[in-house]
């Protein structure tokens, strides 16, 4: 079941041996048009009946007061305020990606270690000035400062660490290629929490939805369970009814798009190419590379800076990726020990 990095998995549902595989579904989150309204966070909690998070305290972290993805917050909008220097770094690192010879394709951000050392002079050759320009290829006009917003979500990895390590089979690969927790199977062991390279999955510690002047809720309302692992299901229940996931459905600017993963990927590549044409070389894709440490993700993102800026790991790697090698070495070690033991017995026998 464990897939190796680098191995092309066109359709993880086939890999999961579904007899009638559906097309793989996924998100494309285009952060360049996100307005940070957080409607996705609310729609997600509404649909999934997730509890509110936290202590109702302001975090002092721009407009982000839910902090991170977790057991209850399955969509999370990050807010990053950046000054001109940081924008220029982002632009030049993005341009370096292009200069690698893969314009518009969105090469893996994980390989951008050298990008930051790209000469910044090319990024400050006057195109960031405030003078009006009607050229279509001119870079954007507001570079002194920017406010990035990005709606994060479970990546639904091609090679999903959480799923690989789940000892109970509670986590499973759906017919749509997504990864879902079965609440009635999960025993809350928490192994998956350490298995996710993105820090997405988490055990729910407490809480039910409480609304003080409570209106009548339908009897069928699902009650969240305490202690078990929770994360985005990509609205598996809605998907089965051919409905768009709640977050994508509610997004007012189509920043969150949902559909067949192949379509999402091609849309994402077109969009990044378009932004590059407009001079926004800081645009790059995240999760689109099948050769990355998780075999690419079902949720693809268009970012305007390096992944770390958004709190995303630059080089996500499924922890089970090393298992074969580990097994091999363990096997060798075991063989060595057996040999040693045998030798010991043999030697002892001579006494």
């Amino acid at each position, binding site marked *: 079941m464990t897939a190796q990095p680098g191995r092309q998995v066109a359709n993880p549902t086939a890999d999961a041996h579904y007899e009638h595989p559906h097309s793989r579904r996924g998100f494309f989150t285009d952060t*360049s*048009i996100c*307005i*940070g*309204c*957080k*409607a996705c*966070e*609310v729609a997600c*909690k*509404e649909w999934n009946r997730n*509890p*509110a*998070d*936290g202590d*109702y*305290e*302001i*975090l*002092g972290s*721009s*407009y982000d*007061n*839910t902090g991170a993805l977790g057991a209850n917050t399955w969509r999370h909008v990050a807010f990053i*305020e950046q*000054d001109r220097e940081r924008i220029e770094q982002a632009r030049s690192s993005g341009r370096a990606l292009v200069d690698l010879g893969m314009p518009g394709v969105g090469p893996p951000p994980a390989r951008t270690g050298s990008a930051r050392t790209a000469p910044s002079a090319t990024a400050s050759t006057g195109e960031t000035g*405030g*003078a*009006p320009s*009607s050229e*279509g290829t001119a870079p*954007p*006009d*507001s570079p*002194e*400062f*920017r*406010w*990035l*917003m990005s709606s994060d979500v479970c990546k639904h990895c091609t090679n999903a660490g959480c799923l690989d390590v789940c000892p109970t089979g509670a986590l499973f690969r759906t017919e749509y290629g997504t990864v879902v927790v079965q609440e009635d199977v999960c025993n809350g062991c928490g192994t998956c929490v350490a298995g996710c390279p993105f820090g997405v999955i988490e055990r729910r510690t407490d809480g039910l*939805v*409480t*609304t*003080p*002047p409570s*209106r*009548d809720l339908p009897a069928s309302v699902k009650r969240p369970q305490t202690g078990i692992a929770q994360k985005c299901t990509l609205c598996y229940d809605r998907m089965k009814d051919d409905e768009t996931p709640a977050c994508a459905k509610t997004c*007012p*600017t*189509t920043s969150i798009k949902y559909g067949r993963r192949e379509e999402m990927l091609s849309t994402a590549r077109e969009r990044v190419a378009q932004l590059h044409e407009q001079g926004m070389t800081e645009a790059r894709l995240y999760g689109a590379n099948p050769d990355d440490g998780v075999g690419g993700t079902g949720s693809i993102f268009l970012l305007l800076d390096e992944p770390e800026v958004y709190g995303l790991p630059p080089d996500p790697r499924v922890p089970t990726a090393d298992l074969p090698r580990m097994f091999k070495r363990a096997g060798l070690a075991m063989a060595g020990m057996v040999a040693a033991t045998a030798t010991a017995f043999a030697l002892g026998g001579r006494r």
Partner: protein
Amino acid sequence: MANADCIVIQGSNMAECHPVGFQWVSEAKARGARIIHVDPRFTRTTAIADKHVPIRAGSDVVLLGALINYVLTHDLWFEEYVRAYTNASFLISEQFRDTEDLEGLFSGYDPSTGKYDPASWAYQRERRDSAPEDAQTDRPGDAGAPSDASAHDGYGDGEAEGESHGSGGPPAASEPLRDETLQDPSTVFQILKRHYSRYTAEMVREACGISEADFEYLARSITENSGRERTTCFAYAVGWTQHTLGAQFIRTASILQLLLGNMGRPGGGIMALRGHASIQGSTDIPTLFNLLPGYLPMPKAELETVQDYIGAIASKQQKGFWANADAYTVSLLKAWWGDAAQPDNDWAYDYLPRLTGAHGTYQTLTEMLADEVEGYFILGQNPAVGSANGRMQRMAMSHLKWMVVRDFSLIESATWWKDGPEIDSGELRTEEIDTEVFFFPAATHVEKAGTFTQTQRLLQWRHQAVSPPGDCQSELAFFYELGLRIRERLKDSGDPRDRPLLDLTWDYPVDDDGDPDALAVLAEINGRHLTGPDRGKPLSSYTQIKADGSTEGGCWIYTGVYADGVNHAADRVPGQEQDEIAAKWGWAWPANRRILYNRASADPQGKPWSERKKLVWWDEAARKWTGDDIPDFPVDRAPGTEAPDGSGGPDALDGDDPFIMQADGKGWLFAPKGMVDGPLPAHYEPQESPVRNPLYAQQPNATRELFPRWDNLTAASRGVPGAEVYPYMFTTYRLTEQHTAGGMSRWLPYLAELQPEMFCEVSPELAAERGLEQNGWATLVSPRAAIEAKVLITERMTPLESGGRTVHQIGLPYHWGVGREAVVSGDAANDLLGITLDPNVHIQESKVGLCDIRPGRRPRGAALVDMVTEYQQRAGLTPQTGNERVTDPARELPGRELPAGEEGQG
């Protein structure tokens, strides 16, 4: 907006406050439009804009006026459009004096009343020697003639002339003198040039804190994106309206857009973004004291007969559709009083309440404090948190005998008597409050059927999804039942004053739960034939409305929404199944037109200005107007038509009079009547300002409505002793995550957690100046109150250089209130605000105030009051401070350069 080539969002945080509508800005941007955000703050709107232009709050007229000046001096105005469709060539009375002549006032100002007599702003009627020979002869009764009714029949403070008229402005008739060469110094065009001649890029830098480079960028962006091939659109919200001259902010934009030819065209216009669901509807079918449905004015006491009333709205001789105000009025009265409305009783005109003065929310507030109001209904409102000067609001409620709060939860306006700020400070004691508070739980929007009318004037039907739980009721059910109960009580009354209630048509079909059918109400609003072969059938257009009692209709502009008995508000053909106009999604008033005044999208000959921007045009073969949208023009009026002399109403419209609701059919660069504070927008400083007015000796709007009281003190503005006590500007606003005063969001955990605490946004520079720490506490003190907030230090706030000093602006969201019922609570920003109003529309100035900010939490108990008082005393404030109408020229003029008169012309 999707069709715009450039969008200027100013006075609005559209992405945060109108995220759904913002999709069209996103769409325009995706199609290549340039998006510019002019705002004191860098907001989520700015984040996806191409350019942020930070501005000192309240200085917008300087910026827009400078853009007008730029367009005029660089000869970038759309000449053919301006000549044909605006009043640029009209001659204004020789008695008119501009602000350039009178140090910031126009002619006609009466210092004793604080009001203008607009007689000298009128169009010229008599032929003058200097007028060119080819000037058209005038017709009788032109716009602004002093003989017009209700021009200056002053009530006390708070009376606005604007409310005497329908939305088309005041009565007027036919065409005045014109100079088609635009050279006569009395032409609107020349007056305009002179008026804005000192509104320059340098003045913008001085007044607004905007660099000359940014101004140049803005000016080039809008002018390069206007004309035949391209259009620019403006979008505003309460960032423009909530000022002591808010209506003039919008007028300035109107002048600019007319000069650029951006009105009535795809991707053009000025988008008034309405604050929340059906706020547009609540002015169409108004909850305002001074309007009746369809923008008919509320009658004034001295208009004794229905003829007096109609005559004050519009004359039969004037151009356009307001000339038919008699039909709209009679039909409305028939809808309300049915058979009791007859010709011999003036169609029951006497049943209408009549105004004896201004009765807006703030006038009512002072009357409550004076124990002149016994009861108060609060519906979908939370004045204890959401209205200006929160302490005054709560104190006023303590003077009532009873009040009714209809809401989802126990909002602060229902609980101020037990846990409001004044209980804590000791100013109110629960056991001494005699107000009886009745709480009625309300149904939510998914628990009732009806329409929302949104920003685009689109009526959209919403179906009931679930029944309201428990005792929750819709507004419709509540008021229907209240009416039934009152009528039951009065049924044996012989008192004539009860007749209006007893004669009301108050019979709607009800469902199994006793709820009235909202569709029956919509059908009544739409109107129906009362006589003839179509008796009982719905009207299909407002042109069918009659003044003879043969039709009825509750709101003339909504006629057609129920044409042929079909609820067109419920039309829902998906966008991908129809063209971009999307005429089959909802229904837009009037007549399902999506762009108003769209005759202007074609040239005077009736051809589209360009292929790219075509919308409606004259089909010569068919002899009618046609196109993608429904033409907003008499459909068979050929482009070259000259209306016959002596005609009135729609018949009097010439073929090139696109502004069909205006008395002269033209777009008004200069408003000869209708605005109470001047025919042209002039910049005045806010009631509380950190700088002197750089343009005129006159500091604030001389006609603003004042409430000089000890509980509504004004901070001293720059240059007045005591000004240093409240050195910083603050501005209030909303966040996406919360809704207004919080009644619909702070009780919901999912929304409350997203913005859980009151905070203030300050620049790093101000934080350093005052020792504020990130996520620490700050106390803000204004002349009205002191509140505390968490500190959010951000580069999104920019100190500006204006008036020779650094101006710091503090951002304050106003969603929180003090109470124990909500999931999250906090101090209310609106407690800091004072009450001073725009004279045209009586809106409060809540976008600019002065305060001090200091680190740490505010005092508790009586010490809080002591702190506010100590500040007031240190500043030497009295009710007179800041409340002079006319700034004393003797004090202001020395050392000032007098205006240079003709300079800048040409």
